């Protein structure tokens, strides 16, 4: 049973940890969650990102966006690097999400085979 005490404990733990978190210089993740994305399975992909980022103690923000315009390639995830450049991942799955977190987010190695460039 979830309790308020647990919530307060999470708050305390987060406050203590905040300074130790790593956000890789301003990197962000944007997940497409329009009707096309949801139908294609974007929610499990989002879930995989959240879980893996939590495991790696990463502070990278995960944002949700609407239709990116290429619905047949959903689920799509955009990673904005610290220098502002954008990598667009397409036909994402929870398994690919784990690889993207470990290779790209944590180690700055783009997963070229999952990008829109490889698909077109």
């Amino acid at each position, binding site marked *: 049973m979830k309790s308020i005490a647990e919530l307060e404990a*999470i708050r305390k733990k987060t406050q203590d940890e905040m300074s130790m978190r790593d956000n890789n210089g301003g990197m962000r993740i944007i997940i497409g969650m329009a009707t096309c994305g*949801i*139908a294609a399975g974007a*929610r499990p992909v*989002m879930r995989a990102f959240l879980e893996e980022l939590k495991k790696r103690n990463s502070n990278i*923000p995960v944002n*949700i966006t609407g239709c990116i315009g290429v*619905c047949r390639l959903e689920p799509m995830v955009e990673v904005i690097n610290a220098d502002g450049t954008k990598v667009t991942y397409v036909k994402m799955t929870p398994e690919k999400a784990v690889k993207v977190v470990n290779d790209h987010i944590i180690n700055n190695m783009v997963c070229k085979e999952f990008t829109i460039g490889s698909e077109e």
Partner: protein
Amino acid sequence: MKDLSLHLLDIALNSIEACATRIELLILAEGGKLTVGVTDNGRGMEGESLMKAQDPFFTTRKTRKVGLGIPMFSQAALSAGGSLRIHSREGGGTETKADFEIGHVDRKPLGNVGEAVITLVLAGRETEITLRLDNGNQQWLFTTEEVRQYTGDIPLTEAGILDWMEEYINEGINTILGGVLDEVHR
């Protein structure tokens, strides 16, 4: 969409698009009928927009020419002996409600409502989200406003808090709708 929680998420994301600051999700199961709905205080629709909302070839987005969310939701309701209704007023918010016969063979399952709500929290960081559950005898309420009382200035998008909210909500679903909807277990 394979379950109703995905439809709810889809419609509620429209509410965020409409600049809603408050969104209420409703799941009511009573007398053999399941009603799911999204009510928001966004900019609303009137006239032509409201009439065309259920038209798959109508959308306000610029990236494509189709808007399938509402028509697909309506289809899901019609397939399960129900229907979808939208009430809206320009500047006055929108209420979208769909009902389903609980025992209908083609009724989609409820799905992971907790996950739908946390996706909404991520999508609308400043939006207050409420989930109301009702089985005719008991009511249950979740509000992000109340969670904020305990989390202080830690954002709700913090991983640990998202997890807590998802589990808390799914526990509520099991308690109120377990035994009422076959796919939900107490």
